[in-house]
Structure formats: structure tokens, C-alpha cells
């Protein structure tokens, strides 16, 4: 469904991504791993339209989406989360999900001005959707609290919920477990496993190896902007190139051998 062809991107003189290609099947969960600075988040920014690549193409369901703006990528039902949370701090928990539902609604400026019956119906529908989703991610009790009052782990969940609100076909998760404790990580795992059953295609960037290995159907390894390995989690774990890339990063080696 998603196809990346020879993606290249530089920042100043730094080659952030170099000739990266891989493809994704419908319903698949792909783990994207690599040391810090490997270009993983840059790749997400390119897919989600935050900036275009210097070279290469991105195709989604056969359509070229390389240079589409972020909001048009979202219209194709591609949604994402951010490594450093990007919650709307000045809104309530519920409002964050209402914004997540932006593409579910259609009301424009004139129906907003006049609060037409049609607009009220749509608002009620969106409220219902958002409340249902809040219940699903276990935040129903916090609906009317300011988002910034939530603990970090809950904020991660809220952001995940916001990305799910409009019904993604492709979901890009940038380190969803970062900063979560053991129990929260397990809850997250269970929740993500549930998404698999809804046939949502997912790319997940994650440093928590046990999470990646357990969740992913396939893993792509980036190092210094290049793809150095691709395959089933067990194969990748044994790949000498991958082990070399992580040499010197003790934690990584330990986590890979675990």
C-alpha cells in the first residue's frame, strides 16, 4: 500500500537519508529501527508531508504523494504521532480528540457562524465519536481536564488516540513507548495488538526492542541514513551488519541479544 522509492534528504551538508527504499503491505506492522540519528523520524516527516524529500518518490495505494502538503496526506487517512509529544496544551483532553476528528466533519465557516441544525447534528456526532474513543483508550474520566494536567504516559495515549480519531489506514508511530513505565508499555502493547485486528497498517519507530520484535511482522534497519537490513525480526537480530551498526552502543547490543 505504501512504497518508498530511493528516498534521499540532506540537511545542510548532512545526509539524513540516502537512497532508502522499502514497501509495505496492507495490514502489516513494520518496525523501523536504528541508532539515534539514523533518519527514522526524517522518514516519517517525509511520508506525512511535513517536508518533501530531495530525491525519490512516495507512493500510497498506487498514487504519487511525494509533494503533497501535510493536510492532504491526512486526507488519505495517513496519521502519525510525534516522538516529542505535540498535544494541544491549551485544550481539554476531549478537545484534543475533537480536533483529531477534524476530517470526520465537514462544517465550514457559514454553518459555523449560523449554528445550523445540520452543524449541531454533526457536532454531536463528533462528540460521540471522541467520547467513545476516550473510553477505548481509558481516558474517559479525564475528558474535561486540561490536557496538560495529564501524566506523561497518559499524554502518549491521548496522542495515539488523536491519531486514531479520524480512522487511519496507515498509522505512523514515533517511539510510542518512550518514557512509559513497564506497566504502561504492556498496556500499550495490548492496545496496539488490538489495532492489528482492525487491519490498520502501522509503521512503528521504537527503541524498546522487545516491543518491536514482538509486534512487528517485518523490521527495517536504518543506519546513518541508509537501509542496512530488512526482514523478519529474528533474521534481522542475527544480521552481522546490524550488529556492527550498533557496535559501541552497549545498550543496543544487549537489547538485541536479549
Amino acid at each position, binding site marked *: 500500500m505504501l512504497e518508498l522509492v530511493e528516498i534521499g534528504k540532506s540537511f545542510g551538508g548532512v545526509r539524513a537519508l540516502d537512497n532508502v527504499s522499502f514497501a509495505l503491505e496492507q495490514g502489516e506492522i513494520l518496525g523501523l529501527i536504528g541508532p539515534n540519528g539514523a533518519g527514522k523520524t526524517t522518514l516519517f516527516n517525509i511520508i*506525512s*508531508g*511535513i517536508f518533501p524529500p530531495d530525491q525519490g518518490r512516495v507512493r500510497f495505494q498506487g498514487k504519487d504523494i511525494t509533494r503533497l*502538503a*501535510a*493536510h492532504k*496526506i*491526512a*486526507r488519505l487517512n495517513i*496519521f*502519525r504521532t*510525534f516522538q516529542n509529544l*505535540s*498535544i*494541544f*496544551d*491549551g*485544550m481539554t483532553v476531549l*478537545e484534543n480528540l*475533537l*480536533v*483529531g476528528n*477534524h*476530517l470526520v*466533519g465537514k*462544517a*465550514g*465557516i457559514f*454553518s*459555523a*457562524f*449560523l*449554528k445550523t441544525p445540520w*452543524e449541531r447534528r*454533526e*457536532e454531536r456526532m*463528533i462528540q460521540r465519536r471522541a467520547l467513545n474513543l476516550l473510553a477505548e483508550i481509558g481516558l474517559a474520566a479525564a475528558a474535561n481536564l486540561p490536557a496538560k494536567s495529564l501524566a506523561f504516559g497518559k499524554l502518549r495515549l491521548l496522542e495515539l488516540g*488523536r491519531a486514531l480519531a*479520524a480512522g487511519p489506514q496507515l498509522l505512523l508511530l514515533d517511539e510510542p513507548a518512550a518514557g512509559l513505565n513497564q506497566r504502561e508499555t504492556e498496556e500499550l502493547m495490548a492496545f496496539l495488538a488490538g489495532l492489528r485486528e482492525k487491519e490498520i497498517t502501522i509503521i512503528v519507530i521504537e527503541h524498546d526492542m522487545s516491543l518491536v520484535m514482538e509486534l512487528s511482522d517485518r523490521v527495517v534497519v536504518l543506519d546513518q541514513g541508509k537501509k542496512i537490513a530488512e526482514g523478519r525480526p529474528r533474521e534481522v537480530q542475527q544480521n552481522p551488519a546490524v550488529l556492527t551498526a550498533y557496535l559501541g552502543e552497549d545498550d543496543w547490543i544487549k537489547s538485541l541479544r536479549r
Partner: protein
Amino acid sequence: MKRDWLIWLGAAILIFATPSFIKSPYFFTVLIFIAINGIVVLGLTLLMGFAGQVSLGHAGFFGLGAYFSAILTYHYHFDPWIAMVLALVATLFIASLLGIPTLRLHGHYLAMATLGLGVVLQIIFKEEVELTGGPSGMGGIPYLKAFGISFSNDYRFYFLSWAFMLLLLGLSINLVHSRIGRALRAISQNQVAAGTLGIPVSRLKLLIFALSAGYASLAGSLYAHYMTFVSPGPFGFMASVKMVAMVVIGGSTSLWGALLGTALLVSLPELLTKLQDYEMFVYGIIMILVMIFAPKGLAGMIGKVGSLARIRLKEPNAGTG
């Protein structure tokens, strides 16, 4: 939302009851200026508080409305209401021309561009003597008429100006509590995240900018037909700065802040007539004090006092529970 409409109703009753216990014509003049300025400030509040953009040229849009109305009715004998609509359309168009290139960029390019536009408009108002009367202005602008009533005295214009104010306030309340209003707040809080959720960031910023210029234009038309005279003075850079000050002092994240800030800064010079020369000085002091003690403006301060009172009232129960 319900609370906003309750306050709106209260304000409407107060406004339409006021003439029955206050008769001073001077008082009405002040109230009319609060309504007219309040409409501009309301639009600017939508832009600043709900979309996170700043305009330093809103007095220019105010002037566009006033001069378009003046010129179309005086030189070309248009019906004032039709002139008002044409002025609105022309202002929306000019604001869009300015907004399309600048609002695509991140950062405060809009502030710079509107600052420039304000200066250019001021020059046009002064130099196009044949159309605008130049620095000494132009008179002979007709009064607004509707259903055989001419809004030619302060008493009548008071109702007209506040009817406009309440109408636009009502529309704005609806807008803020809508899908578009939420999207605008999302943009002001995190533009990148808003984009990835499908919100067309540049387009909505342009929409709200044009809309706020439109509010200013309508206020300008009202001004022209109230004064029946326009000159470049009230549409210059200092006037734009005052309008920004009204938004900030009132509290940019509340529509009611627009009214409070305008009411304070319009009536203040009237109260401190002896301090005329120090007017801008007093403005500056007030702004500094507000920023230090009430960063969310007067509206924020009132909200805080309100919630404190509520906590006080609840405390006894909380203790026994």
C-alpha cells in the same frame, strides 16, 4: 458555549435598557465609539487569540471601510448599505491579496506586512486629495437609513451600532465553538500537529485574517456614516497599536476580553481628559501592569476571580464530605 450566550443575553438586555436610565448625549457618544472600536477589536481578537497571528494594520482596514463607504456614497451616490457591502468585499479582497503570500510562511510575516499596508493606506488617504479630501478629510457623507428611520442622532445610532456589535459577537461565539474554531485554536497551539490532522493551516489562517479585516471594514463603514466625516487621523499606525493594546488588555483568548479592553481604553482618555498629553503613557503603564498581574487580560482576571469564588463556596461541603 451556553455560558457565552447567557452573557450575551445579559449584555443585550443591559445595552437596550441603558437609554432608559441614562440621558446624557455625551455618554452615548462614548458608548457608540466603544461599539465601533469593539467590532474591530473583536475581529482582531479572533485573529490574535484564536489563530495566533498579529496584525499591526487593523486601523488601515478600519480606514478602508470608512473611506470606501465615504467615497462611494459621496462621490458616486451609492446607497449607504450597498456601499457598506461593497466596502466589505473590497477589504476582504485586499486582505486576501496581502495574506496569501505572507500566511504561507511560518513566523510573524503577517505583522510586518500589515504594518506596511497600514502605512501605505495612510499615504493614500492623505495624498489622493480628489477622492479622499487629503489630510483635511471629507465631509457630507450621508446618514444610514432603514425603514424610513434615519440614524442621524446619537440615540438612534447607539442602537444601530450595538445591534451590529451584538450580531457579530453572536456569530463569533458560534464560530469559536465550532469545528473551524477548534481548528484555528489547534493551529495557534501547534501548527505542525494541526496539519497532520488534516487542517489546511494556510487556508484557515487566511480565512480568519480576511474575516477580521472584514469586521474592521464594517466598523469603518459605521464610523463614516456616524461621523459623516472622515480624515486620515484615526486610521494611522498609532490607532493600530491601540487596537492591539485593547485585545491584549482585554484578554485575547476571550471574546468578552475584546469588549472589556475596548471599553476600558475608549473610556479611559475620556475619564482622564486632563492627562490628554500623557494618554499613550498611561496606555503603556496599563499594558505593563496587565501583563504582570493578569497575563490573560481583564477577561482572564474576571474568570479567575469567578473560579476562586466558586471554590470558596464549595469548600465547606468539601470539608465535611
